[in-house]
């Protein structure tokens, strides 16, 4: 078992929480893990990515090789396309559709979605709306995690346990909202790929 994942977004959008939960589950399962993060200047509203690698064999490189990623999981639509050089031919692009517009030349949404639809394996998900329905917009990243769940090679119940472990300290209410968000993401992908 080996999964190479590029997490993408804009500084401050919380892609590292996704990495933390997957990482938690992976190490619980005794899988090998490497996860490269971006700290520093780019965190101020710039484009950020995290390379997350899990495998049942030892992993050498901290970086996912170009053309080697199984999944691009992006919390922002334009950012999902920035990392195509890393994606395998049959790899999946899974992205939130709410744009984060902090530049003046941000492209039109239908242009972005058009580009996305050129790829056979893609899922575009209104994660902010689904998160709001689950209880808070802030759980958008957890909706995205749920949307990617069936591609991660991790049982859904293990991801749920990961949510409980990582958010446990913040109280039952927060855990429940995030579990709801996780399931909403999963259900969306189940329908989209049915």
């Amino acid at each position, binding site marked *: 078992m080996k999964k190479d994942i590029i997490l993408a977004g804009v500084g401050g959008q919380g892609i590292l929480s996704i990495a933390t939960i997957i990482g938690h589950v992976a190490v619980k399962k005794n899988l090998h893990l490497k996860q490269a993060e971006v700290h520093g200047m780019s965190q101020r509203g710039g484009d950020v990515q995290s390379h997350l690698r899990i495998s049942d064999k030892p992993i050498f490189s901290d970086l996912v*090789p170009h*053309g080697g990623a199984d999944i691009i999981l992006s919390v922002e639509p334009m950012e999902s396309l*920035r990392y195509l050089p890393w*994606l395998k031919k049959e790899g999946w692009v899974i992205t939130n559709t709410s744009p984060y517009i902090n530049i003046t030349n941000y492209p039109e949404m239908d242009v972005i979605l058009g580009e996305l639809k050129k790829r056979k394996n893609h899922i575009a998900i209104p994660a902010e709306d689904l998160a709001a329905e689950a209880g808070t917009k802030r759980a958008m990243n957890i909706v995205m995690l749920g949307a990617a769940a069936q591609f991660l090679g991790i049982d859904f119940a293990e991801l749920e346990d990961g949510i409980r472990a990582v958010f446990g300290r913040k109280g039952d209410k927060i855990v429940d909202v995030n579990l709801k968000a996780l399931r909403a993401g999963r259900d969306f992908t189940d329908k989209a790929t049915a």
Partner: protein
Amino acid sequence: MEAKLSDKKQLLLGDEAIAQGAIDAGASGFYAYPGTPSTEILEYVQRSRVAQEKGIHSQWSANEKTAVEAGLGMSYAGKRTMACMKHVGLNVAADSFVNSGITGANGGYIIVSADDPSMHSSQNEQDSRFYGKFAFMPVLEPSSQQEAYDMCFYGFDFSEKYKIPVLMRITTRLAHSRSGVELKDPREPNSITLPEDARQFVLLPAISRRRYKKLLETQSKFIEESNNSPYNKYIEAGDKKRGIIACGLGYNYVMENYPDGCPHPILKICQYPLPDKLIKRMAEECEEILVVEEGMPLVEEQLRGFMNAPLTIRGRLDGTLSRDGELNPNMVRVALGMDSMMGDNVPDLVKSRPPAFCVGCGHIDFFKALNEAVKDKHGDGHVFSDIGCYTLAAQPPFESINSCVDMGASITMAKGAADAGLFPSIAVIGDSTFTHSGITGLLDCAIESTNIVVCILDNSTTAMTGGQNSHASGRVRDICLGLGINPEHIRECVPLPKNHEELVKIINEEVAYEGVSVVVPTRECVQTIGKKPKKQ
């Protein structure tokens, strides 16, 4: 959010592995100034309950030079210590660093320098291994988080065995990548023991000459240690058409491309000076050597010497690998003679998204006022800036600043330009950068009554690196008074949209004043306000 696997295995960033390694290896103190990608080392120590219980020193230093010197003092007293900085911080500390090779150490001393190839968050991509060579110091370059942890034990032991500080060189990718790390049993810290030679640290010429000779004589022992190091290994393989020397993370990128094992001999190097016997062996056995090293071609240049060696050497100098920038698996793959694995191109519609000021940041209000008072009136070209969030004012829509060179250079460059006759000459510096390296420059200005305006943007924190304590907090005015700045020309103000007219007026008045003016726009960083507990 952190995931703890067990008491003996933890998921750690490279930076965190170093911190935990040094704590477990018996460090009594850490000294550092924040700088990406090194910041998380000291932050981890500050959060560590064990470090608190043991009373391990973990306060930030004013700058990297004071950090390396304080570390040397703790080593003098016989205790194990670690100083941490980013690569350009080692320039600031260079005086104390290079001389600490001559003084030597007493308690184990590891100096960590975190390089930033590809300049993700830096002004240059210098390679700290050159500093190690320059100072005749052993260098450790971990290839994994586990090695980073283990090398803290090894490094302290090495340092105490040869009474020499050890440089640990890491790069961004290791610093900010997480992996599982097996922990060892912790060791007790040293008790206070003064150096056997009470004059060891007195670098009077007569003593320095003796110490320097000793350092040179010890080099052969360091090389022998490198030949036998657990971190340098010669991995035998059948196809000798090519041998590969892979340093630090370069080893991982080579191995990534050979999932079933590498057909060529590999010499993995993670400890310097270079292991001469292992290199000679490869040179004898192989027809060609490919050098894969992160950063500058330190090993490749040493292999080449001044004349062409009889065998072919490939690497960054002959273009087999890019001369600059960070390595990645695909670059190394192509250098190994395999096809590129590059996926699809980035579509043209994807626009660059540079970092920008946070919404509500006080710097926005300051630069709006500065532009109106200076750029609109006197034209572009009058503003010397510094290292920090405010450097983002170089970008549209502000395009306010004309320089950013090194910590503190805003004030001194503005001084030089004012001396040359540039009017107005404006310096823009943050509070933490001011106490790091700005104070001495402002003293130069005060002594000469230089005609400049120094704007010290006080947001009560070291913001760009994530909100570490600033030595300047609440002290900017007193420091300026102490330097001899006229109190009437130390102008504090609050950068808010509603104060725009007042800010412009203050800057205009101080530009008009002939002499040193200090303008202090003071408003807390919106990021650190957001992080504070609500009940306070």
